[in-house]
């Protein structure tokens, strides 16, 4: 199929970027979106033009690198799918596709479609861990009984791949779905209780420091999340935060 691509090009973080239009022929429905981008870049290379910079790694939906806003939707039109797992058969011959980077003050563009998501790392570092004594007599995690429901919920929360689509989708560029998922995966387990208070306080403080917006419960994050992380996590974070601030 033949496509018209409108892609955000930006030399570096401080440069002023702009949308550039490309025509691309020979796209197959069985290609993934990133393979389509590879073909475009090969084309550009052959013509001696600068290829489009974009993030990718696993190409199987687990690393969370492939950040692209496709026609206004992070990771494109298909639900529960990362850009790398999106197939071109979702589009029609002759379509015009707009491709933009994640847009958030906290995710500055490095180049073209590639953004700096280290803000997420710093939120994680602020409390998204448990301290375990690994001196040699560490208790087997399976020896601690956990309610099945909580184990499942914690597991679902832990499937967040840190892609940042929630921030990209939110009209407020809020990082609450990500942060709440990272808080929930511990809040639901006994292992997470020791540091529960400082975790939620520190992670929320870091999230605010990074310049993400405030949640207004539009729910766009959950709809666009490739892993189906639920809004309920945000409610849990709000609860945990109140608990931390009041009873400690």
């Amino acid at each position, binding site marked *: 199929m033949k496509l018209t691509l*409108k892609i955000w090009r930006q030399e570096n973080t401080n440069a002023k970027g702009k949308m550039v239009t490309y025509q691309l022929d020979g796209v197959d429905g069985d290609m993934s979106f990133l393979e389509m981008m590879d073909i475009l870049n090969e084309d550009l290379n052959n013509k001696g033009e600068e290829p489009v910079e974009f993030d990718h790694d696993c190409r199987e939906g687990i690393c969370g690198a492939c950040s692209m806003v496709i026609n*206004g939707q992070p990771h494109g*039109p298909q639900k529960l799918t990362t850009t790398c797992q999106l197939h071109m058969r979702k589009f029609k011959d002759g379509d015009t596709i707009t491709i933009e980077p994640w847009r958030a003050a*906290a995710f500055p563009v490095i180049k073209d479609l590639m953004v700096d998501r280290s803000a997420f790392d710093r939120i994680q570092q602020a409390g998204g861990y448990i301290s375990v004594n690994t001196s040699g007599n560490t208790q087997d995690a399976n020896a601690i009984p956990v309610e099945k429901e909580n184990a499942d919920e914690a597991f679902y929360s832990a499937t967040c791949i840190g892609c940042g689509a929630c921030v990209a989708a939110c009209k*407020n560029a809020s990082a609450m779905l990500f942060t709440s998922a990272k808080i929930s995966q511990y809040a639901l387990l006994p292992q997470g209780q020791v540091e529960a208070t400082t975790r939620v306080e520190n992670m929320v403080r870091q999230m605010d420091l990074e310049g993400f*917006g405030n949640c207004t419960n539009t729910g766009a994050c959950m709809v*666009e999340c490739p892993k189906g992380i639920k809004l309920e996590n945000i409610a*849990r974070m709000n609860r*945990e935060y*109140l608990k931390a601030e009041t009873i400690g």
Partner: protein
Amino acid sequence: MSALVKSSLARKWVMALSGLFLVVFLTQHFVINITSVIAPDTFNEWSHFMGYNPLVQYALQPVLIAGIIIHFVMGIVLEIQNNKARPIKYKSSPGNANASWVSRNMIITGLVVLAFMGLHMYDFWVHEMAYKYVEVNPEDPTRYYEETVEKFAPIWRVVLYVIAFVLLAMHLWHGFNSSFQSMGAKSVNKGEGLKKFTKVWSILIPAGFIFIALFHHLNHTN
């Protein structure tokens, strides 16, 4: 106040609590207003109570005004901060594909309601204050019904009234349920019952206010 607005989550709590407080107030307001349709004497009696009871006048009224101010000031603060969090906007928009119009435009529906509240204060509250404290008229427990019906005679006021309440319904359609999510209510996903209640309420109460306005307007011209 600065401590309250420091953390994004505390701001959510303030927004939700002030919003819920206004929801409670609106319910009480509706209960009194609807008596103007079914029992004018009761309407006069209750209005007089609200207008002259010291607890209402000197305790509840200032709390209400504070609640309104906190809510809309915080709403505007959030809007400004949220705009700053995305300085460069997208060229393409997903429209309603991932979030409803009302949920994305709380500031618009909110500001229209605020403008209406300006008119409403001028219409009823300034008039009341002038009647009681400037003109120092004697207490008259029977004047409220006539005054209210009179207010709804001009069609322009009824039209503004209807527009404001339609937008308030939109504001609450998202906001009422949303406030429970903000306060961390466990039931957001499971609690379909609570969600349904908030949706029904957010249509019924504003529709009730509109009904009262139309009722008096039509009765007056007849």
